[in-house]
């Protein structure tokens, strides 16, 4: 099979399985909980309230006329998508080891299903976010549409990392603990709770090597009609594509041994 064919195979021949596994991720999570799916909204909302209390009442970052809560939400939401996806995907293969030992199907479907399910959660939160923006009279601009390609890039990056982490975690479980640690550090190395302008200027070039900086700044520029810093956005998209293909390559290479180590 050619490379391209391998790449699209799960979406052409395994659509139904992908759909079923995604549904499983979504449905199963909040079964036997009293308010069920409402947690999808309550979780980010409560996180948001805590952060906005700490960083707008206590630290008081300046965010250029944009209410802090909107400034924060614009980055915290996509970050949550990134972090949640990687966190779950890292354990994805281990959690499904009984399937790996039993039935053959392209294993990347497990990873895609996890990320897709997180994306559904994200989408619901994003609607709430739009309502927030309206209530707080933040004007919508057409540049907001740039969010779509940026999100696509972020998803590629997410899936690429998930490929690498989930494969490694199948061989050595240390990865899931390391991933948690890494994600926590990563969040504070990315302009989410604070604006990029607070980063000391002598380190800013180094700081911007982090591909998530380009995405987060991109979302804010798009939503708040600020000028885009194209160099870091192009850098982020480039890294995302590279990481996706590297991850995919590693994953498919290791896939043949999954059942032997799972």
């Amino acid at each position, binding site marked *: 099979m050619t490379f391209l064919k391998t790449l699209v195979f799960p979406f052409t021949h395994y659509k139904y399985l992908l*759909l079923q596994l995604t*549904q499983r991720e979504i449905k199963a999570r909040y079964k036997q909980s009293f308010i069920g799916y409402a947690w999808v909204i309550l979780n980010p909302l409560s996180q948001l309230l805590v952060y906005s209390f700490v960083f707008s009442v206590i630290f008081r970052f300046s965010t250029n006329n944009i209410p802090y809560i909107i400034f924060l939400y614009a980055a915290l939401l996509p970050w949550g998508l990134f972090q949640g996806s990687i966190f779950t995907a890292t354990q994805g293969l281990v959690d499904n080891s009984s399937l*790996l030992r*039993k*039935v053959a*199907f392209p294993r990347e479907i497990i990873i895609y299903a996890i990320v897709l399910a997180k994306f559904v959660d994200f989408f619901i939160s994003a609607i709430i976010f739009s309502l927030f923006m309206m209530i707080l009279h933040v004007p919508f601009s057409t540049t907001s549409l740039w969010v779509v390609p940026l999100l696509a890039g972020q998803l590629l990056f997410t899936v690429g990392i998930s490929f690498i982490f989930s494969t490694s975690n199948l061989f050595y479980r240390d990865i899931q603990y390391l991933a948690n640690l890494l994600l926590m550090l990563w969040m504070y190395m990315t302009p989410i709770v604070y604006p990029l302008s607070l980063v000391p200027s002598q380190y800013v070039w180094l700081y911007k090597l982090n591909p998530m900086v380009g995405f987060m700044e991109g979302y804010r520029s798009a939503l708040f009609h600020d000028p885009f810093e194209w160099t870091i956005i192009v850098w982020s998209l480039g890294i995302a594509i590279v990481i996706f293909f590297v991850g995919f390559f590693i994953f498919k290479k290791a896939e043949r041994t999954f059942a032997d180590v799972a």
Partner: protein
Amino acid sequence: MPNPAITFQHVHKDFYLQEDRTFKEVIPNLLRGKSLTKKYTVFHDLSFEIREGETVGIIGKNGAGKSTILKLIAGVTYPTKGTVAVRGRVAPLIELGAGFHPELSGYENIFLNAAILGMHKKEVEKELDQIIEFSELGEFIHVPVKKYSSGMYMRLGFSIAIHTNANILLIDEILAVGDFKFQKKCLDRLHAIKKDRKKTIIYVSHNEESVLDFCERALLLQNGKLIKDGDPRSVLSEYHTL
């Protein structure tokens, strides 16, 4: 003569066992230049062919490689050398209900499990009533499967696997399914499938009587080698001399 359904050609299969799983053990061994993994060979040079519609039993002591053969046929593991060719879709009746999610109902799990076994939406919908009926779960079908007894769990798993349109069935110690009555129902169903000769059945069991009763051919494995291939009666008598 029917077409071959499964062909093993000079199959060699190694497993690598990770022996030193912790840092404390790995580092000294790395320094000494010792390999991190230990190679374990299951098959040296295994060749056989199974034709469409055949019902073949695989016999051998624990560790002879029976399960590995099933995994190679299912396509979840690959030979180190040699080739395994499988024509058609495989339904493994191994670890029944392996893909079940405990929090989802039996009904929801039918769709999930059938998709895992390679079915499409329309196919599942077509078979749905028969799957539920065969499982004898009745109203329990809408209860989360974590509340099921192990027998109910197996019954649903068996019922889904048997209703897929796979043409190769892999059966591993399946007859521990449910109570005596349900076991008989499963066996009757398998006999019916066998008579049809549309599906190829690979059967692994330690129960010699069921192999004699069910299979028309048997393979005897010892230490990763195929030492006898023939009718179940002669293969079993050879097995007793080992």
